[in-house]
């Protein structure tokens, strides 16, 4: 187990360094931020001074090394636009993104698993077919368009929900959150539903497929033959066995929800990291783009690592298979 964890940890660190390099090299190919930051009427001397102040006149290799050194100390440069440390900007906005992603995941799980279970138990009934048709629709709906339709219906037509912003926030353990006030919940509702639609469809399909498969297994037939009530067979024998892959997927999808929040945040002007990324790309604010990508990639690598280790704890075949492949 320890060997597996260490090997997996080394792999994660390697991926992180590779991604840091790609992101840095890549982002430094984007336009010239001086064009944007310096007054167009500025003379050459002033431009040179601004370039030197931002460290943009140094050779590329030197810039990368000082970037790596800084990254290790948690310093990813200062935002060209806001003139504050980029990493601080990201961490200021991160709670909003995490709250949105968490809310979306909760909606997807509490609706997706029961619906998938129903569709799996009664695949040929009207309700089973309706749930599956709904999940195909959910897969096909463009996230950003659903957001627009939500605004169109609930903000413009009925005027029930606010179309943008985060609303009133309260501090929970020193972190501002929206979900504890009525106003905050009103602001959170549409973005969270918007972000949840795709994951909800995914969970419905996954639960349905798992249920259908496990219903054919001998242990379920045996449990039924023993005369156990249907509630117990489904609640214990079926659900317990399909939960392992579902929990894994939920873990992995949490990262993807954070990435997709870019779209939802842009539509609902939710003040999270995703909106910050799009704004920064448009303003050529390199340090913020780099900091965002590195933070998100790190979150991803950590999630993948934790899920892999948990999975190998739950299912010994995973780590044994890997060890066998390594020999």
């Amino acid at each position, binding site marked *: 187990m320890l060997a597996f964890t260490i090997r997996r940890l080394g792999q994660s660190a390697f991926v992180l360094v590779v991604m840091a390099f790609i992101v840095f090299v890549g982002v430094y190919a984007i336009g010239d931020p001086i064009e944007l930051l310096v007054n167009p009427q500025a003379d050459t001397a002033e431009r040179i001074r601004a370039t030197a102040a931002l460290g943009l006149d140094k050779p590329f290799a030197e810039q990368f090394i000082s970037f790596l050194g800084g990254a290790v100390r948690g310093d990813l440069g200062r935002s060209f636009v806001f003139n504050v440390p980029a990493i601080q900007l990201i961490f200021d906005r991160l709670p909003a993104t995490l709250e949105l992603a968490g809310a979306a995941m909760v909606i997807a799980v509490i609706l997706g698993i029961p619906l998938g279970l129903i569709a799996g138990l009664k695949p040929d009934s009207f309700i089973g077919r309706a749930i599956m048709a709904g999940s195909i629709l959910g897969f096909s709906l463009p996230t950003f368009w659903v957001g627009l339709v939500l605004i169109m219906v609930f903000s413009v037509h009925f005027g029930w929900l606010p179309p943008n912003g985060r609303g009133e926030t309260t501090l929970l353990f020193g972190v501002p959150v929206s979900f504890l006030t009525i106003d905050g919940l009103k602001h959170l509702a549409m973005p969270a539903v918007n972000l949840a639609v795709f994951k909800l469809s995914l969970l419905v399909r996954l639960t349905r497929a798992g249920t259908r498969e496990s219903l054919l297994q001998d242990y379920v037939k045996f449990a039924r033959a023993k005369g156990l009530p249907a509630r117990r067979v489904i609640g214990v024998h079926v659900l317990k066995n399909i939960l392992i892959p579902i929990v894994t997927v939920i873990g992995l999808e949490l990262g993807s929800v954070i990435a997709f929040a870019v779209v939802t945040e842009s539509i609902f002007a939710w003040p999270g990291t995703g909106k910050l990324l799009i704004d920064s*790309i448009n303003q050529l604010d390199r340090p913020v783009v780099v900091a965002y990508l590195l933070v998100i990639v790190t979150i991803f690598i950590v999630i993948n690592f934790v899920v892999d280790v948990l999975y190998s704890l739950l299912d010994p075949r995973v780590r044994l298979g890997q060890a066998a492949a390594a020999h």
Partner: protein
Amino acid sequence: MSFTRCSTRAFASARPLRRIDSVRIAADIPPAGSEPRVESPWRRFAAEFAESRMALAGLATLVVIVIAAIAAPIISPQNPYDLAQLDVLDSKLPPGERSSATDRTYWLGTDDQGRDMLSGIFYGLRISLAVGASSTVIALAIGLAMGLAAAYFGGWVDALIMRIADIQLSFPAILIALILLAVLGQGIDKIIAALVTVQWAYYARTVRSSALVERQKEYIEAAHMLGLSRARIVLRHLLPNCMPPLIVVATVQVAHAILLESTLSFLGLGLPITEPSLGLLIANGFQYLLSGKYWISFYPGLALLLSIMAINLVADQLRDVLNPRLSR
């Protein structure tokens, strides 16, 4: 010898699918004693596909959409890119309104520049579908080559290719695409490059796993016995039999590619504004949404939804029909 080889190659395009189906049917032959069925593989495939009405409806919708996209210049009431044809006085008219200057009716309304939305949607579909399909074809070719190479050479080639694919697939497509577009900038070639990068790994993985399974089968052994060249075995025997799962993945991926392109364009990172795809049309209408002018965003989104849904319905049924585990 060289002559026969040329002539068989000329028919190569028609052959692979036929061979797949004959392999499937060989597996499906009923036990001795029951009546042998004489049925062409294509007809059998069509019959199985047509069992689902939803899938047929999806296919019909898809055909209509593709025809509309191809015939856009003929069926559009207006050329949406020709500024001379646009009338600013007609801007932001609701659906069904008549033009102030001509007697034209704007069935789906107009946008902020007086562009007919129906024409804009036809042309937008054209770009969205073209970008989706071309990126899928390129990614398919790259993934196919990579997957076959991994399965065929094994060893470090396999390890290297599959490691890269694994690492890439552990990140969501949109994140990879965002990184790439932040790096590359805007443009149709750049968005295709991003979509190809995002997709190739799916194909490589699918091809590799089915190639590894197929390689063990007797017909490959028989081909080796016949003394056929390795290239011929890989390309003419192994490859065609790896196609069914690949077709399914490719169908799903076209829908993904179209969706991803429109999302990126909506965020302003995809295609340039000069030739708007559906995503850009929707983004353009977004700013007028809060003032109740819903049609500028709503109808292009509906066209996008219908296209993706049609493709997904077809893909779902293809998966059921081509999946040997579910064959009836």
